[in-house]
């Protein structure tokens, strides 16, 4: 709403500067987007909140100004001269849908002269950002901007039988014989209506001539040949108007005002004000009286406000005079009704107020308290920090999540946050079988029409972005959610997603470059696994992973249901995403990981440090391809030698002197006794048993080292 500074002076004796006014308005609840000094003086751009339709006119803003500056408001009381002919003889109005239209007034003016508006009127419209058309049309806009109440003018002679019927739009009948009702609106567009929309029709009601409260029809529009004018000034039910405007995708100045709740009492006044201006600027003869059908008339509500409640909600007092002055200026007519009426500042003070017709949304005591507080000034309530009465708790998984995050960052991964909206076809690349994705019914674009069913989709997108921007060595992780549907229920699952590509170590002064490999991924994940007492890896292919480098990961509590998977992105998928480097990905479901972290933490106990030295022995083995390191460890462990404290693989190679179909593995076994220093004889004995078992069970050969 553009508030024209000089226009306000029609209603209050304003002396404050536009800047001061803007700032005071802002601090009393009217959001100000800016102040401009134009050719017609200062214009304040006010962003009126949706609960204040009364401020969508200068008169209503002037009432606020009066309350702020304690200036009396000059009331609008137009008294246009009327002829002896009665309006009620010239036009008939019938409201058939009073649940949509609570009031309809009509006035008729004969023999007007449609012509351009005078300069003062054009100037005020221009300052308000409204184009001037002709005097009568401009007057209806002017009155709307002045009083906040929309009105519509018809060419009286085009209204059939000079009769208006307000009714619901005619729906298509079930049999499909009758089409839904249609009409061409003022903007030249033919529109189709449903039966929840209020139509203004003429004659026998068969022809629509306007959409109630939204826009008039083209056929009865005022033109330069119009002689006689019918002024409609009505009141429409706000929810129905908002619904209709949304249905029609037609949001107008009128629908905004009626949709937020116009003042039904203002309808007749605004009509009279328009008549006065038409007589003044277009001449003619105003028929006497008004046709006023008002089925929606309401008795004004009484609302009580007490000092006790002001104190309870606001925490500080407001003096009686301030309470009364603010409420009076805003039109609430407060009256002290408590027994201590004479006593100023009484804790028992209570006021009974009358809800003004322009403030339908003020219905409760709390609404009045807000009015009092905002005019009094929010800065008058002293801030204080309330004492806490209970301990505060972090999220249950806060500690676990923090430890995972810190460890990942220590391992060189950067945390990212992504938007879960992705393209369906992308999501489908990574979506496990049998998973229903969460599709959007109203996506902004096809690129973002489904919520990711795994974090892999978006982390792949982030890798892609970096590669496309020249960042080749990237290690990322995201702690987020993935989204799926189970029937018509949504499932959000916390996941950790990891993505890495390029060099794990870049060429530097002290080190050669080294590509990120599956071993890096596995090692990093196992560093996390340390927190859950170790991850259990199983060879397993997901369709989008390279089958030779793909695994599922489980935690000890439940080895049958993996918590995640890891591997190298299959070439085929990488090419589709135009990822021209090896890409490694992993995802872990976090709730079971967090649970396992808690269990592992609870189970952790100190193990006394050994008092005797440990001894290492290396075994250089030739093994057949397909024999796993875990076969070696199991074979060694099956010997049941208590003193074995570790079995590690320290070197692995193929080729050269190693025959085809075999590989060479260097295994280091650490012996540690808690009772004594181990003797050469004992170690020799254990080594002999180990070699024998490996030869016998795995067909291992010893290599001369």
């Amino acid at each position, binding site marked *: 709403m553009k508030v024209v500074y000089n226009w306000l002076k029609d209603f209050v004796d304003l002396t404050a500067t536009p800047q001061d006014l803007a700032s005071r308005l802002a601090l009393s609840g009217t959001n100000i987007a800016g102040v401009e000094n134009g050719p017609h003086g200062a214009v304040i751009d006010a962003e009126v909140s949706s609960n204040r339709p009364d401020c969508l006119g200068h008169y209503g803003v002037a009432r606020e100004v009066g309350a702020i500056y304690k200036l009396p408001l000059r009331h609008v009381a137009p008294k246009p001269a009327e002829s002896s002919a009665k309006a009620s003889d010239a036009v008939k109005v019938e409201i058939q849908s009073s649940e949509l239209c609570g009031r309809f007034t009509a006035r008729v003016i004969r023999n007007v002269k449609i012509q351009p508006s005078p300069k003062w009127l054009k100037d005020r419209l221009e300052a308000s950002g409204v184009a001037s058309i002709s005097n009568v049309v401009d007057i209806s806009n002017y009155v709307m901007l002045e009083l906040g109440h929309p009105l519509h003018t018809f060419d009286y002679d085009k209204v059939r039988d000079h009769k208006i019927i307000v009714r619901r739009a005619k729906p298509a009948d079930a049999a499909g014989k009758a089409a839904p009702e249609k009409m061409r609106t003022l903007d030249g567009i033919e529109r189709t209506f449903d039966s929840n929309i209020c139509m203004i029709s003429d004659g026998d009601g068969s022809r629509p001539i306007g959409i109630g409260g939204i826009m008039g029809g083209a056929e009865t529009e005022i033109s330069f040949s119009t002689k006689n004018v019918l002024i409609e000034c009505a009141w429409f039910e706000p929810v129905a108007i908002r619904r209709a405007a949304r249905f029609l995708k037609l949001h107008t100045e009128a629908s905004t005002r009626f949709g937020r709740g116009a003042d039904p009492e203002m309808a007749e006044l605004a009509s009279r004000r328009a008549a006065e201006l038409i007589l003044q600027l277009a001449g003619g003869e105003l028929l006497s009286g008004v046709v006023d059908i008002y089925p929606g008339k309401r008795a004004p509500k009484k609302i009580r406000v007490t000092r006790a409640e002001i104190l309870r909600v606001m925490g500080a007092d407001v003096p009686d005079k301030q309470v009364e002055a603010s409420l009076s200026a805003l039109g609430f007519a407060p009256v002290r009704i408590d027994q201590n009426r004479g006593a100023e500042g009484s804790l028992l003070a209570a006021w009974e107020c009358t809800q003004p017709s322009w403030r339908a949304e003020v219905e409760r005591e*709390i609404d009045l308290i807000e009015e009092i507080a905002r005019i009094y000034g929010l800065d008058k*309530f002293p801030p204080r920090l*309330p004492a806490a009465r209970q301990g505060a708790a972090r999220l249950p998984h806060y500690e676990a999540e923090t430890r995972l995050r810190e460890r990942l960052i220590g391992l060189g991964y950067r945390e990212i*946050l992504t938007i879960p909206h992705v393209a369906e076809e992308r999501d489908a690349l990574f979506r496990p079988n049998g998973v229903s994705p969460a599709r959007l019914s109203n996506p902004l674009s096809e690129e973002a029409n489904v919520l990711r069913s795994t974090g892999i989709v978006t982390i792949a997108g982030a890798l892609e972005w970096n590669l496309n921007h020249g960042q080749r060595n990237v290690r990322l992780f995201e702690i987020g959610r993935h989204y799926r549907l189970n029937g*018509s229920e949504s499932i959000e699952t916390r996941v950790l997603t990891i993505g890495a590509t390029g060099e794990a170590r870049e060429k530097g002064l002290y080190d050669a470059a080294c590509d990120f490999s599956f071993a890096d991924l596995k090692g990093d994940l196992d560093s996390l696994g340390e927190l859950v007492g170790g991850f259990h890896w199983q060879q397993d292919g997901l369709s989008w992973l390279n089958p030779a480098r793909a695994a599922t990961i489980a935690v000890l509590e439940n080895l049958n249901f993996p918590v995640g998977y890891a591997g190298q992105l299959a070439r085929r998928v990488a090419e589709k995403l135009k990822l021209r480097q090896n890409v490694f990905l992993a995802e872990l479901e976090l709730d079971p990981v967090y649970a396992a972290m808690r269990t592992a933490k609870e189970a952790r106990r100190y193990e006394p440090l050994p008092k005797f030295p440990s001894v290492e022995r290396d075994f250089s083995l030739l093994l057949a391809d397909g024999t796993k390191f875990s076969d070696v460890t199991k074979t060694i462990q099956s010997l049941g030698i208590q003193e074995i404290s570790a079995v590690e693989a320290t070197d692995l190679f193929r080729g050269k002197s190693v025959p085809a179909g075999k590989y060479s593995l260097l295994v280091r076994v650490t012996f540690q006794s808690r009772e004594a220093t181990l003797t050469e004889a004992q170690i020799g004995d254990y080594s002999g048993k180990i070699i024998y078992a490996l030869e016998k069970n795995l067909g291992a050969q010893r290599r001369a080292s």
Partner: protein
Amino acid sequence: MPTSDIGLDKTLADLGVTQPEQVALRFAKIRVHFQEHFQTVHDESEWKSFRDRWLGRKSGVLTQITDNWLKPATPQLKRAVGASLNELRAHVESQIEARRAAIESGAEESALARERVDLSLPGFIRPTGSHHLIRQVFQEIEDIFFSIGFSVVEGPEIETPYYNFEALNIPEFHPVRDDMDTFYLELPTGAKTPLLLRTHTSPMQIRTMEKQKPPVRVIVPGKVYRRDNPDATHSFAFHQIEGLAVDSDITFCDFTGTIEYFVKEFFGPSVKTRFRPSYFPFTEPSVEFDVSCPFCGGTGTAAGGGTCSKCKGAAWIELFGAGMVDPAVYGFVNYDAKRVSGFAFGIGIDRLAMLKYGIDDIQVFFQNDVRFLRQFP
């Protein structure tokens, strides 16, 4: 000078030395010879052969003197030879030792020069990762509120219209819904309730109060969604922290005090604050909360003159909306609006991070370019 020239391979008798004066002369010649030789010793290997030449046990000069001059000397000369030999030995040993020390310290000097680290070169840096800036801001805000007794809770991002709108006093066709363009999910026909992406973290106000009786003090960090076309200041996903405090005695003063405490902790003590009346269906009184522009110090004028580009000369920056919980909301969660009161706020995290760190494009948060991520370790 070969040793034969000074007659070390001969006995004194062979050399015709019979008088002690002659012995002294002989030793003087050797000393001259030592000095000459000594001048040529510069490094460790020269020093070693020099030492062996003079002190070597088998054929060192001093051994030869002992063997060839001293041992066969006549009793008259023995005393003089012995004394001179001792003098010479002391001289040679002290000189050789002194030269060793000199050579070693010289070697150390050059070794130091060679091995001294160049501190202008980088150390060996193991690649480390980084926290996302939004996560850092979340953490900072969570910590501030945690320190004054607010617990942290989380909620679903996929919500029902009931929690996102209705229970927050936003019925269908409410004008506020027009400002919160909403994503809906496609559901199978026959679904009981529509599902939407929450447009704010406020649904957790309802879910928290449904589960818990007052006193309530929670904050809710999370992602929210609005169907806005993306540009430098809009993203259809962004982050909020909701706050809610409800108790038997929470007033507007407690509310403004809490918010002021937070803002001074976050932006620093010099920042000024103000509350402007506003409108939200689920709070009353509602406010918009402003801080004095941290870029121009609340003057509206940029450091180099002209209008401050961040607050556009307004001196204030709008931070977030908040207010006292509307009594109508208590009706949805079976709280007695006559007995309890409280406040709620919803802080836009992305906007706050942009303000605090001078970021002019919200999209950088979601692109995850490592050149951006690296700037905020």
